[in-house]
């Protein structure tokens, strides 16, 4: 069965996450995504988080972050500062359905690649510009990182431990929020075009997409003039509701935790029973939800003492069997090998280009499953310039001589102009610095045992 977006062609001038991640989602579902790169201005995700931390050889084809964001795409290199490069991009746009980019507006304007320009090439083109703060307005040309938009959206301000400063997550979280909304925006525009034949320009502000997801706090301020204090993992309505320490083990080490949420008297009783603390059920401080809310600090202290005698997975299963919402706080390895996600085939094995010397590796799939039109089989992100010939010769019909000429002129290429790989400190050093919880030397064997050919669920 064909994937649902088969027949849609997208030209992507993306970088890092906000657009690349969104276009990966569309590529997974059958769209042909042509990812543009520059040999002159290499994307940093190509040269960081390298396979086995190896900066030798063509290391730029071994960066984890690039592989995570660019599955199922075709990759071409074009130097847009060269007239021939820009002209090839325009040619591509003229045969495409969607053009997407996430540079600051200044860049797109310099290249004369604004919506009005592109509409002249392809009247029904859909164009997406995804920026930190929006394509218009006084901050339009301000560059932004994920943490910056997390801060500008209000999300960081309301997040954090009780009495602590604002906190941000350890990933460019709002880049993904922007990406998820971008997928929706492109699909809404495609549905409209399917009905009417009309294209349009989509202006995504990563900050605004994040603001759209914190209405509880923003409306409380707008209506009641209130900014509620930061409360960590607590919940305004439930107690106990928190993250509690658990027993470590020889292999995983310490730093083991469980999240437990209790929303009713029934769940409270079950929690006391599972933790074998029936005396709490009679404790007047904890008799009702209101009382538990009032004495939540004392309650958290007692629960932490009790959970410390358990390993988190057995405790999660015991609590869930008793209908208490609970989850082990999974680390990277536990997440990758989580039995439930394995049963659902969430991590998907993807083969890499032979020149990389990398084995097939599992990558996170999608948050959805379609019953009739599943995703396309996973194909690794392109090595640099991998599809120059496919796209420029086969798709656009240029000759081998043209390609050779452009290669000689530096318009297209197969290697970065000035590559610098980021070698991270050794794993031991990263453990010493406290950046890693642990590392496992037999990770290749573990991965291949779980996901190797023939073992894929």
């Amino acid at each position, binding site marked *: 069965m064909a994937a*649902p*977006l088969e027949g849609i062609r997208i030209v992507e001038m993306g970088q890092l996450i906000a657009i690349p991640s969104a276009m990966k989602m569309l590529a997974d579902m059958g769209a042909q995504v042509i990812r543009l790169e520059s040999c002159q201005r290499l994307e940093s995700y190509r040269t960081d988080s390298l396979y086995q931390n190896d900066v030798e050889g063509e290391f730029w084809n071994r960066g984890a972050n690039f592989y*995570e964001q660019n599955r199922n795409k075709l990759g071409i290199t074009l130097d847009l500062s060269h007239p021939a490069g820009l002209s090839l991009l325009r040619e591509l746009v003229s045969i495409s359905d969607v053009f997407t980019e996430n540079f600051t507006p200044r860049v797109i304007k310099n290249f004369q690649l604004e*919506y009005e320009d592109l509409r002249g090439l392809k009247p029904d083109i859909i164009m997406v510009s995804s920026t930190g703060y*929006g394509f218009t307005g*006084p901050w339009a040309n301000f*560059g*932004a*990182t994920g*943490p*910056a938009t997390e*801060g500008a959206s*209000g999300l960081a*301000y309301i997040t954090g431990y009780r009495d602590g400063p*604002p906190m941000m997550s*350890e990933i460019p*979280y709002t880049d993904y929020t922007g990406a998820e*909304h971008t*997928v*929706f925006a492109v699909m*809404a525009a*495609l*549905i409209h075009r399917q009905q009417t034949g009309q*294209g*349009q*320009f989509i*202006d*995504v502000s990563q900050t605004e997409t994040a603001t759209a997801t*914190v*209405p*509880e706090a923003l409306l*409380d301020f707008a*209506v*009641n003039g209130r900014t509620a204090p930061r409360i960590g*993992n607590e919940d305004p309505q*439930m107690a106990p*509701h928190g*993250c509690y320490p658990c027993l470590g083990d020889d292999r995983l080490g310490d730093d083991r*935790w469980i*999240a437990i949420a209790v929303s009713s008297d029934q769940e409270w009783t079950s929690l006391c029973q599972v933790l074998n603390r029936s005396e709490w059920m009679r404790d007047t401080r904890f008799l009702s939800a209101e009382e538990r809310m009032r004495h939540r600090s004392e309650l958290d202290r007692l629960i932490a003492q009790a959970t410390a005698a358990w390993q988190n997975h057995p405790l999660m299963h015991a609590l*869930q069997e008793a209908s*208490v*919402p609970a*989850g082990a*706080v999974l*680390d*990277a390895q536990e*997440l990758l090998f989580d039995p439930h996600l394995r049963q*659902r085939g969430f*991590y998907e094995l993807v083969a890499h280009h032979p020149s990389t010397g990398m084995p097939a*590796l599992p*990558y996170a799939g*999608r948050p*959805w499953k379609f*019953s*009739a039109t599943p995703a396309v089989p996973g194909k690794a992100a392109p090595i640099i310039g991998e599809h120059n010939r496919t796209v420029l010769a086969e798709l656009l019909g240029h000759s081998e001589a043209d390609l050779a000429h452009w290669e000689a002129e530096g318009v297209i290429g197969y290697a970065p102009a000035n590559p610098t790989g980021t070698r991270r400190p050794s794993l031991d050093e*990263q453990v010493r610095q*406290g*950046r890693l919880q642990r590392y496992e*030397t037999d990770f290749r064997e573990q991965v291949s045992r779980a996901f190797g050919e023939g073992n894929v669920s």
Partner: protein
Amino acid sequence: MAPSALNGVKVLDLTHHIAGPYCTKLLADFGAQVIKIERPGGDPARSMPPFCQDERHPEKSLPFLYLNTAKRSVTLNLKSDRGIHILRELAKDADILVENFSPRVMPSLGLDFPALRELNPALVMVSISNFGQTGSYRDYRATDMVEYALGGLMYIFGSYDREPLKHAFNQAQFKAGTNAASAALMALYHQRSTGQGQQVDVSIQESVASALRDVTSNFTYTGAVRRRQPNHSGDLTRLRAVSDGYILPNPGIAARVNWNTVVEFLEAPELDDDKFRTPSARLENAEELGEILDRLFLSKNKMDMFYRAHQKRFIYGVIDSLEEVMASPQNLAREGFVELDHPVAGTFRYPGAPFQLSETPWDGLHPAPTLGQHTREVFSQCLGYTEADLEELSGMGVI
């Protein structure tokens, strides 16, 4: 006025709480006709705080008011045969049905996908659940925090020496709602070209786990397991307190290639010292550097520093309070907040369109419906029911 992008798309909305309603809000705000089916007591989100003026009232829950703009509300008792019959009638004419019950519920009502497909082969059924419709955790229970834990975001989030943390409020559910809306339209796109409907299974856990950078890959590439990061006080990109709030510094590559630019920007001659000139020197003297930076930043004004930084193309960020978010010049210029007038809750500003479409206007300016506000209208328009039919159904407790 031009039509909205999703005009003509008919959505039957059986959702409640947050993830499902955010999905159907996105569809409704961009022009789809959404009929929200509420149980006779209403969507439980109607009792979700905070409330307008802290008044616990089914029309005054702020999350509910936000999540249900531009929808029509119909009450229907799905525990009655007539209620099920009516729902089946409505499903015959829908393009998309969205639900976020626990996975046992729809089959127990006789409304699983095979049954619905028989009524309407073109129907796209979107099911959102905590852990998906299959697998051993299918019936496990969750709150947003539990999804953070089992989705892999919590372990790496928070202070080095404290318990893992989650974002405030309901981020995992908003992610799943957004993903569900995208998936619904992908399936609709296919349906419109082929006539074929299908079921889409959206998992909140997988919504968290599919949006992590370099977490499982760090393990598959090197065997490393990341944890919550230590906060070196000399880190140049660490969040710092300024005189009037917090700022997120980011001197970018300048710190690596030209330390003087940084010294000059910070107006801190004491940093013009070999102790701080290179990344390795700064790491060695992190504590001293941190003390200087902490003191220095406390004397700065947030917005002044932010604008000066961007003149130099340092990508500084602001940590804005809720008040500052709503009053920021960027949000004001882009009309990021819009005023809606609700008959019971009153008039106030809501977060507006999450993105702008140039040719098809956003349609989110209609306030959330009161409970059952459109029951008569929908039943007479869509199903041809008469006043007498409606009286009878009301008497039977079906609506």
